[in-house]
Each structure stands twice: as structure tokens, then as C-alpha cells.
């Protein structure tokens, strides 16, 4: 299932958190050879993890990290504005209606539906929080995954070659893409929506108007 967890709540999810940071080390450090920091526990973290991002995590049937991505609002500091302006024509992408999505990561042997489930969750964020676009930083392998699951971003620019290839791309809400993701992952759209509602509160269960 999909979990939505802010950075300051990760302590309540030790298995998922450890799995996520370790799988990130495997993907970005070991497999792609990026110059990222891996600590003694084998966990990869960067400065943006310290900014209380919102993590969207696929938790597999055993309760382990299957894949994840990280969101930050573009009104604060973001990776794309700090480091990749040369890939956006020099445009600082900044708006409360645009969120940044980075560190999209899959566990070494993920369930096949993991990537699609995460992108479905991205659509729930857009409709649930009024977000119009995501700007993402991702690697070349991920680009292929996005294409395969039918949720290709619009690539603004890319740098590096081979394993070091890195892209900046944009997503916006698409009903068609959502249908493809749901079909491909076998996760009904209402199920995805339920996970979102579960994370951010069921209004029916906390009816303010009757509480007083």
C-alpha cells in the first residue's frame, strides 16, 4: 500500500525509513554511481531530507520499502532551483501550485506494480492538494520506467551520459495516464484515493460540526 509520511514522522516508521534510505543508497550510489552521501548505516541522505519533505512510499506486503519518492514545495529550496537551472532555461520554477519530486527510487526487486502505484499516488496529491505540476529530477533508468508505465514526463533538459544521465522533467494531471497506471498496476483508482484519504484524514470520522 501507499504511505504518505512527512520527514518528521519517519521515526514512527523505522522499517520503511531504513529501507528507503538504504534502497536509495543502492540505486543512486551503488548502481548509478552518483556522488551522493552514504552514511555508516548504508543510508543515503541529502540536505533536502533535512527540510521535512513529504515522502510517498510503497509498502510491500511484508511491510518493507518497495519504492518511494520525495516531495518539496517549490516556494522553498529545491534541488532543481539550487542545482539544475541550466536544464530549465534558467527559469527558477517556483509556485505553490508546483511541487518538486526527487529521489524516485525502487527497491532492488520491487513488485512490478510499484512504480505505477507511486505515480497514481502523485495524481492523488495533485487533485487532493490543488497541485498543477510536478517538476522532477530523475535518472535515465527511471525515464524508461516512466515510459513503460505510461506516465512519461515532459523532459525539460538532461545532462550526463550513461549511468550518470540525469533529467529534469515535468508532469501534470492526466486522466488518461491515470487510467493506464491503474490498469498497469491493477490498483483501482478508488483504492489509490483511499490510501490518500487514510493518510490525510477521513472527514467523516472527524466531523468538526458535531464535535462541539
Amino acid at each position, binding site marked *: 500500500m501507499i504511505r504518505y509520511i512527512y520527514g518528521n514522522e519517519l521515526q514512527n516508521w523505522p522499517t520503511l525509513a531504513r529501507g528507503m534510505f538504504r534502497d536509495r543508497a543502492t540505486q543512486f550510489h551503488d548502481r548509478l554511481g552518483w556522488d551522493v552521501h552514504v552514511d555508516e548505516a548504508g543510508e543515503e541522505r541529502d540536505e533536502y531530507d533535512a527540510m521535512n519533505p513529504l515522502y510517498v512510499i510503497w509498502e510491500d506486503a511484508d511491510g518493507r520499502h518497495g519504492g518511494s519518492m520525495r516531495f518539496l514545495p517549490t516556494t522553498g529550496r529545491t534541488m532543481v532551483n539550487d542545482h539544475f537551472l541550466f536544464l530549465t532555461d534558467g527559469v527558477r520554477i*517556483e*509556485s505553490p501550485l508546483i511541487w518538486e519530486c526527487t529521489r524516485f527510487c525502487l527497491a532492488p526487486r520491487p513488485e512490478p506494480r510499484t512504480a505505477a502505484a507511486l505515480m497514481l499516488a502523485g495524481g492523488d496529491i495533485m487533485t487532493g492538494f490543488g497541485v498543477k505540476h510536478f517538476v522532477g529530477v530523475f535518472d535515465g533508468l527511471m525515464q524508461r520506467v516512466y515510459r513503460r508505465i505510461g506516465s512519461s514526463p515532459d523532459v525539460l533538459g538532461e545532462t550526463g551520459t550513461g549511468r550518470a544521465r540525469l533529467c529534469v522533467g515535468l508532469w501534470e494531471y492526466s486522466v488518461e495516464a491515470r487510467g493506464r497506471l491503474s490498469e498497469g498496476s491493477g490498483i483501482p483508482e478508488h483504492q489509490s484515493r483511499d490510501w490518500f484519504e487514510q493518510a490525510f484524514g477521513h472527514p467523516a470520522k472527524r466531523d468538526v460540526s458535531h464535535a462541539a
Partner: protein
Amino acid sequence: MGSVAGTTSLNSILECVEHADTLTDLQQAIERLRDHFGVDHIVYHWVSADGEQYGCGTYSIEWVSRYLEKTYLRVDPVVLGCYQRFHPVDWKRLDWSSKPARDFLEDAIAHGVGNQGFSVPIRGPNGQYALFSLSHSSDDATWDEFTSTHHRDLILVAHAFNRKALELEPGRAQEVAQALSPREVDAMTLLALGYSRAQVASSLSISEHTLRVYIESARHKLGALNTVHAVARALSRGFIVI
């Protein structure tokens, strides 16, 4: 809830926010905004790192002093639930289950805050954090209809207030006025000349989706509500010349 006038009226309120020189000006703007949306209250609330509270809003003086006197900041589910977050929140979705939270709610309703609310948490530069909240007395269906209709406008207005508050903050470091990048200037200029989005995208050799993102970024930097207002502002401020 009263009828909500069009974006023209909202835009003129945003102009007032933009031109505000003092907290008093912001206070007038927030009162107009409340009337515009026809809700009971709107509050912009910034709690600084050292616990200093700052802002403007339409709550009664009695409620504001009671809130301070009772140190409700420590139990208010809106503050607790939004702190360090960045997604907009309907108050119904917060955790009101504890006894202090329920007592707080009862007191708030008794002071006319309303039984419904919607808050936009704002994460500004350097860890700055603020909350922009609307509250109202109505049934769930009416409130849900209102918040879903105005969802994005509420987010944009919240950020407009925050931008001005940052500017008015006493002792704040001088910041360079936010300029548009050459690419954004190109996009806005072509739009101002009456080109269609497809034509602009093609002239700039970018996709229409990329163009939408550049326009959205420019809109935010110009503090406008929509593309038309953004182009008008870019022109009036001399960012673009046609």
C-alpha cells in the same frame, strides 16, 4: 455563504495586498477578502522561530486575547496539524479527538470562529512558516463546495499575504526583488502580443506543457491570480515591453 464575485474583484484585493505598506493596510485587505468570499473569518498567522506571533485577521479581539491567554497555540489542532507541513488542510481532517482539542473547539465556536475551516500552511524562505486560514459556520456540504470551488485561489491568496508579510517584517534582511528570467520574459512578451500558447511554445521551441510551467512560475513571481493578470502586471512593472 454570500455570492462570490469574479476574479476581477479578487485581483483588486490582491493589488491592495501588493501595495500594502503597513500591517494596517494588510488588515484592511483581509477584511475585504473575507467579504469577497463571504466567510465568517480569515486569518493570516505567522509564528516565528522564537515564538513571536504576527499577522492580521478578522477574529474578535476577545477571541484573540483569549487564545493568547489560554496559550491555545499548544493545543490548537490546526497549528499542530499544519506545522511543518505544506499541504492545504480542511479542519475536519485534523485530529480533534483529545479533550483539550474538543474544549478548544467548543470555545472557538462560542467565540464565533465557526465550525468549519480550511488552512494553507506556507513554507517560505529560510524556514519561515505561516498559516492562512478561513473559517465559517455552515454544514459540511456547503463548506466542501466552497473549498473545492476556490481551492487554488485560496492557496494563491495565502501566498500573496505571506509575500507581503515577509516584506513588512521588521528587521528583515533586504532581499533582491524577484526578477523574471529571460525565458519567462520571452513567454510573457509573446503572450502580451496576443500569440496563442501554441504559437508561443513553438516560437520558444518548448512544449506547451513546459510553457505552462514557465507561465505558472512567472505568475507566482508577479503575485498574480491568473495569466491575464500576470501579463498585465509584467507590463505595468516594466518587466516586459511591447
